[in-house]
C-alpha cells in the first residue's frame, strides 16, 4: 500500500499521507517509502494534515527523515499539523527540533 504521495511545487518536494495514523504499525513502511523521495530532493515539505494520530514510532520515523535530510545537506519542514499532533510535538519538545508551518503558502512565503 502506498502510504504517501509526492509532488513538486516550485522547487519544493511536497510529501502527503494517504493514512490517518502514523504509528508502530506503519512507521517502518513509511520510512522505506519516503527514503527514495528524500534521496532525490534537497528541499522537502511533509503535509501532516491527514494525520490524526502520531505515536512515538511515528515521531521516530519523522526524526529519521530529518536526520537523513540534514546529513545530506537538505532541509525538511512539516506543515498542516492537526491540534492533537501539535500538542504531542510540544509535549515531546519536537516543535523545537522541526521547522513547523501552518500551510504550504507559509513555507513558500518564508522561502521568498
Amino acid at each position, binding site marked *: 500500500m502506498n502510504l504517501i504521495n509526492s509532488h513538486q511545487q516550485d522547487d519544493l518536494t511536497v510529501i502527503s499521507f494517504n493514512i490517518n495514523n502514523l*504509528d*508502530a504499525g506503519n512507521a517502518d513502511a513509511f520510512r522505506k517509502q519516503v527514503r527514495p523521495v528524500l534521496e532525490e530532493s534537497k*528541499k522537502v515539505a511533509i503535509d501532516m494534515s491527514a494525520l490524526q*494520530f*502520531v*505515536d*512515538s*514510532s511515528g*515521531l*521516530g520515523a519523522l*526524526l*529519521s527523515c*530529518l*536526520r537523513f535530510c540534514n546529513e545530506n545537506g537538505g*532541509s525538511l519542514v512539516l506543515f498542516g499539523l492537526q*491540534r*492533537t499532533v501539535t*500538542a*504531542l510535538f*510540544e*509535549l*515531546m*519538545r519536537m516543535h*523545537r*527540533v*522541526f*521547522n513547523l508551518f501552518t500551510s504550504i503558502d507559509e513555507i513558500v512565503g*518564508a*522561502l521568498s
Partner: protein
Amino acid sequence: MKALILAAGKGTRLMPLSRDCPKPMLPILDKPVLECLIEHLASQGVTQIVINTSYLAPEIENYFASGRRWGVELAFSYEGFEEDGVLHEEPLGSAGTIRRIQQHSGFFDDTFIVMCGDALLDLDLRALVAAHHQTGALATLALTRVSEDKVSQYGVAVLDDLGRIMSFQEKPKPHEALSNLVNTGVYVFEPEIIKYIPEHTPYDLGSEVFPALARDGRAIYGVEMNFNWIDIGRVADYYSVQMQAIAGELPNIPRLGKEILPNVFVGANTRFDPRRCHIEGPIVIADSVTIEDGATLIGPLFIGRGSVIERGAHLERSLVFEYTRVGAQATLSHVLASGRWCAQPDGLTIDPQKTGIAWILADSRTPRKWLNQQEQLFLEQIDDFPPVCELIENMRREPAFSRPW
C-alpha cells in the same frame, strides 16, 4: 438547618479530569471542592448534610465518612445498585434524589437548602433563607449577575418587580438573553415541594419541577445575591480557578506548605533545591514531591503530592496532578497533566500509554522500567540531534532548528 449537596453527576464536560475523580472531589490546590462547600455550610450553621452519590461514589464517601472532622453530621444517599461486586450507577436527577431521601427517612422536615457540589461559593446562606421566608415561597433560587458574554454558559432567570421568576432561559446566546441573572444551583425549598416529584424515577428540578410549580400557579422566587461563585463545569474553568488559587487570589483557599521564596510554596517531605532549578513564581509544590536539579518551573504552576519532576523537564503555567512522573524530555506548557493523560484547558487530550511516550508522563508510583527497543531507538534518534540535547541540558528556549532554507 439541613442541606443536600448534589454530587452524583459524571462530570462529562470535565473529562479527562473526571475519569478517575468525581467532579466534586477535584481539588483546588489540595482541597476538594466539596470539602470547601462543607466547610462553608458548617460556618453558616448548617449541621446536617446529605450528599447524594453515584459516579465513583466510594471516592466521596470514604473521604468524608461521618463528617465529624468538619463539625457536621454527614450522610450519603447512594443511587445505584451492586451486582457481582460491581457498583452500577443509577442517578435519580436533582429532584429524584430529594424524593428518595425523603421516602427513606423524612429527612426534609423544615426549610432546607440544596446546592450543587461543583462550585466554590461564599454565599450568605442565612440571608438567603431569610429572604425565602420573607416571601413565604415554596422555592427560592440564589441568583448572581454575570457579564453578558458569559450568559451562554448558564441558566438565566427573568424576574418581575416582586422577585418572582417569570421565565428561564437555558444557555441563551448573549444577544437573545433576557437577563444576565443566572441560576447558581443553590436553592431553598419547603418540604412541600416534594409532592411535585414522582417516586422511583429520575427527575430534574430545572426542567420538570419548576415548570410543574409554575403550571400549578406556585411562585418561584429568585434572590440576587452578591457573592463569589466559581463554577468549575468545564476543564477551562477548573484550570482558570487553579491558576487563581496558585497566585493566591482566592481568599478562602490558602496556599499550602511553607513560602521558601517569594511566591514559592513547598510542602513537607519534598526534595527540591531551588538554587539548582530555574524557577519563576507563583508556584505551589505539595508534599513528598521530588524535583531534580535542572528542572525549569515557571508559574502559575502546581505540582501535586508524590510527583517526580526529572532533571531537564520544563513546566510552565500548568497543573501536575498527584503521583505524576514528568520525564526529562517533557515540556508541559499551559496544560493539566497526570500519569494517565495530558490535557489542554479546552479538553484536547493526549494519552501517554496509547502514544507510547510513557517515559515522558507516567504514574510516579509505577516502578521505572527498562525502555523497550522501540523507546530506546526513539531516544537514540533524539540524541542524534545535538540541539535537543543542548536544550535538555541548558533549557534554552529558542528554536533548536532556526536554520533558514
